[in-house]
């Protein structure tokens, strides 16, 4: 048979199968400072403003043996294109053998591209490329061409649509038959194509990156136009192609989580914030709480932001889901420490949630329903250049609970928890995928882009328990909500750029509990401006300001509490006289920052400084935070990195209310953070990062403070003071395998942290009792192991695409047990006034609970219909039902320890429909 066939090299058409390029995963250290050109508000979404184009194509040699056997193949490759357009690296995603891989790689290595640009600056990128080796039929006999010319023509026109999501498929090749001489055409940005072919049967072949080969037959009548829609099946298991946008790293450690990872990591219920807990440097929070305990810091010391604006309330009611809808995020960046000068207001880590720009092709959306809530996500172009994305979610536990709660005779029992949240984003700019993506070109070569976003959440909890058989009549009514509206304007001209991010917000915080009532409102006005300029290829400067103004008002009424209004007596709490207060506070927190990237040989130095000013009432606080990062490119695959610096976090405004309910003399919480590490790219999809850290926290807020004599008489226990200190050190290891392409089945990571965290306060414990670090103190120790200390934290996360719509994910965790103080009793110590026993403890935190280990598994199954996709998932926490210990408590006489178990096996089922 081979004798009748004529060999022919790979088709040039294959070169047109360039996928939408993505930023290279670990560019060279000497690469242009694309990160420098990426201001913080836009950091979550660097944009490829100019895709690479193939300018020099080299034909591959057909492997002789394959040729002899008449074999054909398509070799799928990942090409890393350097910032000068040369091919830096070529890797097959799935070797096909028979010499095709070697031949294709050898040819592609000689390719030459026009340099790609990211945010207007040349940058390394990766593209997926398919090299087809085909065999052609024998040369037609003489005169055949004339016959063909006389043959009547037909037109095939239509649109390529991604099956299950209705996304348009651009840059796909549409042709009739396998003949290399057959006419072919590329689909445009809307997936449309028009092909003129000889009338008759057309064996349609559609080749598109990330999609399975599409083949069908169309009968085309002479001189007629046939219009079709072809639904292409994605070759990956996910609904969307995995798009990574790892950017050049300046920070010593930045972990990036994609939307798919955020949604499909087992045990996280698809909650993006909880996925962060699976990364190195993050201690495990108790139960299913999503608290972020980063490198020895306490809860509340890690800041979470949505596109540069702080999220004031991260989780819904009582350990509920985070207020960030997973559908709305583009990706998450997590900085456990050593972050840039443009970031502040945290002495722990930073989580930056990058939101998603609305689709530019057509209307898409999804609806998700699970045990607790239901929500939707919609994205659509409005007009050319304007797109919108919106998401909302509401719980329905309040509708289910009445059916479960017991009926009370002659009384009322009502529990109404309710939450909702929303996100809305409107983007202004050119259509996605165009050379000036996200950008409007103005006169003089300057470019502007922008978007407006709103987000917020609302939590309500109403509990009413009344009746003659209840212990007491109880009425609790709380409501907390916040709203934020932000803008984002990015302006670039030449080597200068500017990003301006203003925002306004309103928070409400109401509590009614019996005679105690609080109505709190906070109005927020803030802005961030980052101005950067690339002075030379070796020096880039960035400067800016970051300001927030708050006006808080509290209208409170409550019975006079013991310990604040009078000296409490142990035991039965009396009912105090009713007090009423109206409090208003104006607060300003601002920062000026300046940093530079200086390239010296293989070194990149980034010195920076952030000056912070906080004013609340008559209080003025200043803090200066110098920081330095150094990166050394040891090899093209290995970087050494280090950082040290100071970090400041202002106390929340409400803590400044006058004595005795606040402390107007509070100062910035501070921390010294340092780290040293190495990162190495084992392969393009396999990276390892080892980082050691040492952090020292000081001036941290603790509650209560010391007992102090008031100048005008009386004695107060300061509700808060800056006596908190802490220290943490350890080593983090992260080994991550990413999916090389949509057909790559494996992804996941292994993270391990070895650390020691200490926490406490300067000076003695306050007289009259009081805890530190959020826990009660069982002895006189003012400093010791942190309650959150976990020596070993091991997490393994893996996802596997089984095919046919099935995906399987697993997460295994092991952490050392939490510190605990053992009992050392021998006699009972009874406080007769309180009717409570007092414990006699052994050395503070000299023991630990048992180690925690748990396996979570998640199975996803997708059914792709023509224009929509249905996905069902089963997320099982604690698959083998490990009896983990979350806490230890004692019986009432402190004679015996009892272990509070963690959650048992917990299956959660959810359904999601998307189009």
């Amino acid at each position, binding site marked *: 048979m081979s004798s009748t066939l004529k060999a022919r090299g790979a088709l040039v058409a294959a070169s047109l199968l360039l996928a939408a390029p993505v930023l290279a995963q670990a560019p060279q250290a000497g690469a242009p400072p694309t990160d420098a050109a990426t201001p913080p508000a836009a950091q979550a979404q660097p944009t490829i403003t100019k895709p690479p184009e193939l300018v020099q194509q080299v034909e591959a040699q057909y492997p002789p043996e394959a040729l002899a056997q008449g074999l054909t193949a398509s070799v799928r490759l990942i090409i890393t294109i350097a910032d000068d357009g040369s091919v830096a690296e070529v890797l097959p995603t799935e070797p096909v053998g028979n010499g095709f891989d070697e031949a294709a790689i050898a040819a592609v290595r000689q390719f030459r591209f026009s340099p790609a640009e990211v945010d207007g600056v040349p940058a390394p990128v990766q593209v997926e490329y398919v090299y087809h080796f085909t065999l052609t039929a024998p040369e037609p006999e003489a005169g055949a061409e004339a016959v063909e010319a006389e043959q009547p023509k037909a037109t095939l026109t239509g649109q390529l649509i991604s099956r299950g999501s209705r996304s348009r498929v651009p840059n796909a090749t549409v042709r009739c038959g396998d003949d290399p001489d057959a006419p072919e055409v590329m689909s445009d940005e809307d997936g449309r194509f028009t092909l003129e072919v000889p009338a008759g049967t057309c064996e349609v072949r559609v080749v598109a990156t990330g999609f399975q080969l599409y083949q069908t037959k169309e009968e085309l009548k002479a001189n007629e136009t046939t219009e079709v829609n072809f639904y292409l099946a994605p070759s990956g298991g996910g609904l969307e192609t995995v798009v990574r946008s790892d950017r050049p790293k300046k920070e010593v450690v930045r972990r990036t989580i994609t939307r798919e990872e955020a949604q499909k990591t087992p045990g996280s219920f698809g909650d993006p914030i909880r996925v962060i807990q699976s990364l190195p440097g993050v201690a495990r929070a108790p139960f299913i709480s999503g608290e972020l305990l980063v490198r020895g810091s306490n809860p509340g010391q890690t800041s979470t932001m949505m596109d540069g604006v702080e999220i004031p309330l991260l989780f819904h009611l009582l350990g509920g889901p985070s207020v960030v809808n997973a559908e709305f995020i583009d990706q998450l960046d997590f900085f456990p420490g050593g972050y840039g000068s443009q970031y502040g207001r945290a002495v722990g880590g930073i989580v930056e949630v990058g939101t998603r720009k609305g689709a530019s092709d057509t209307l898409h959306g999804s609806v998700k329903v699970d045990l607790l809530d239901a929500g939707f996500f919609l994205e659509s172009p409005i007009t050319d250049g304007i797109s919108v994305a919106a998401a909302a979610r509401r719980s329905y536990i309040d509708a289910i609970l009445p059916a479960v709660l017991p009926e009370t005779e002659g009384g009322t029992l009502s529990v109404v928890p309710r939450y909702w949240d929303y996100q809305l984003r409107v983007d202004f700019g050119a259509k996605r995928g165009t050379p000036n993506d996200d950008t409007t070109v103005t006169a003089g070569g300057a470019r502007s882009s922008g978007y407006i976003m709103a987000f917020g959440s609302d939590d309500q909890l109403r509990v009413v328990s009344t009746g003659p058989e209840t*212990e007491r009549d109880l009425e609790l009514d*709380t409501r907390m909500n916040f709203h934020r509206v932000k803008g984002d304007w990015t302006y670039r001209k030449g080597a200068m750029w500017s990003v301006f991010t203003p925002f306004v917000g309103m928070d409400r915080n109401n509590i009614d509990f*019996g005679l105690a009532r609080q109505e709190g409102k906070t109005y927020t006005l803030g802005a961030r401006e980052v101005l950067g300029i690339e002075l030379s290829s070796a020096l880039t400067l960035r400067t800016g300001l970051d300001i927030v103004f708050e006006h808080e008002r509290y209208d409170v009424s409550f019975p006079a509490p013991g310990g604040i209004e009078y*000296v409490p007596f142990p035991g039965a709490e009396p009912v*105090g006289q009713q007090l009423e207060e109206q409090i208003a506070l104006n607060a300003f927190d601002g920062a000026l920052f300046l940093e530079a990237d200086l390239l010296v040989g293989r070194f990149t130095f980034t010195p920076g400084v952030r000056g912070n000013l906080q004013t609340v009432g008559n209080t003025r606080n200043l803090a200066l935070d110098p920081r330095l990062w150094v990166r050394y490119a040891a090899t093209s695959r290995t970087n050494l990195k280090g950082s040290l610096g100071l970090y400041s976090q202002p106390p929340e405004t409400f803590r400044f209310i006058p004595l005795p309910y606040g402390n107007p003399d509070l100062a910035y919480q501070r921390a010294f953070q340092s780290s040293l590490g190495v990162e190495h790219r084992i392969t393009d999809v396999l990276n390892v990062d080892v980082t050691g850290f040492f952090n020292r926290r000081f001036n941290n807020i603790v509650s209560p403070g010391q007992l102090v004599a*008031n100048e005008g008489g009386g004695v107060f226990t300061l509700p808060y003071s800056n006596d908190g200190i802490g220290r943490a050190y350890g080593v983090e290891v992260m080994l991550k395998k990413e999916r090389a392409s949509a057909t790559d089945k494996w992804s996941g990571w292994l993270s391990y942290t070895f650390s020691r965290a200490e926490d406490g306060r300067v000076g003695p414990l306050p007289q009259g009792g009081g805890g530190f670090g959020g826990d009660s103190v069982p002895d006189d120790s003012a400093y010791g192991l942190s309650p959150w200390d976990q020596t070993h934290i091991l997490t393994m996360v893996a996802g596997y695409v089984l095919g046919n719509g099935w995906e399987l994910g697993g997460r295994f965790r092991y952490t050392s047990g939490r510190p605990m103080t053992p009992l050392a009793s021998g006699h009972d110590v009874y406080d007769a006034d309180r009717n409570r026993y007092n414990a006699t403890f052994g050395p503070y935190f000299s023991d630990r609970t048992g180690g925690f280990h748990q396996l979570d598994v998640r199975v996803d199954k997708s059914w792709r219909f023509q224009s929509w996709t249905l996905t069902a998932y089963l997320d099982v926490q604690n698959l083998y039902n490990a009896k983990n210990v979350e806490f230890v408590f004692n019986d009432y006489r402190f004679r015996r320890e009892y272990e509070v178990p963690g959650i048992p096996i917990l299956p959660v089922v959810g359904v999601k429909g998307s189009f």
Partner: protein
Amino acid sequence: MKTLLEYGGLLLLLGATACVDVEDQPSRVHDFRVLGLATEPPEFMASACELNPATLDELSEPVTYRALLVDPAGEGRPIQYTLWACADPEDRTCANESNRVLLAEGTTAPGELTLSIQPGAATLADETPLLERVQELDPYLGLGGLRMPLVLFTQAGEERVYAQKLMVFWCPAVEGMRANVQPVIPGLRVDDVAWDAEAPLELRGAGPFVVTSEDVVALQETYVVPGLRLEAVTLRESWEISWHATLGEFSPQETGGSSFGGQEGRHRTEWEPPKGAQAQEVTFWAVVRDGRGGSSWLVRRALWSP
């Protein structure tokens, strides 16, 4: 907001704790216990706020000290006791010998131990009046009254209990202050039937039996104390009653009191005998505390049969 979240976390923890079956319960008295301590009067009120010989004399009146010692499984074994007055409320066992004064010691039998003591007259080994030392060690500079810990050490067999009660010595620091009146439970009812002390009540069945106290609202005093910020703060007592029995358990085990929001509990509880128990006489104790140092108790008996 943060406070509410912390309360939320606490609620979750309490919920999880509730899932753990704790064997030993305060209301089920099965071994040696000190169930209550009281002084009569519950507090002293000096005529002036300077601690001088005259006021010390006023505060040195005798006090009747009572301790409710129960030992249902002890078969009447002797109970050794030692009573100290100390200076530091944080010294729960009165271990600091330089700051303590021995008031009484001896051996007694289970039941109510009654002693006549004069804690206000106590002087330390260095001749310092104990009240002066209490004042020195008080971080609140006497704004909550001088609170002298009375620590009773008791031992029955191998079981040892240190029990502390604060004896309050007030002075009229602000207008309207009056000495505390001892709280007394006016009476108890079982399933709405009066429960007298004279004869054991007959109870039959698996229960639960609803036990209530007679209304105490009118007995709860409104009183005035010096304020830490304001001149004076007006408070109203919200009594708590703890419930104990030699068989079965009470739920709730403590009633009354007020929450942060001033929502007061009602004195209603349910007593439930254990399944499979034999008919027997059961002793019940209800100990009331007024939240400012006053305390007393009632003892009741019942003949229970399944």
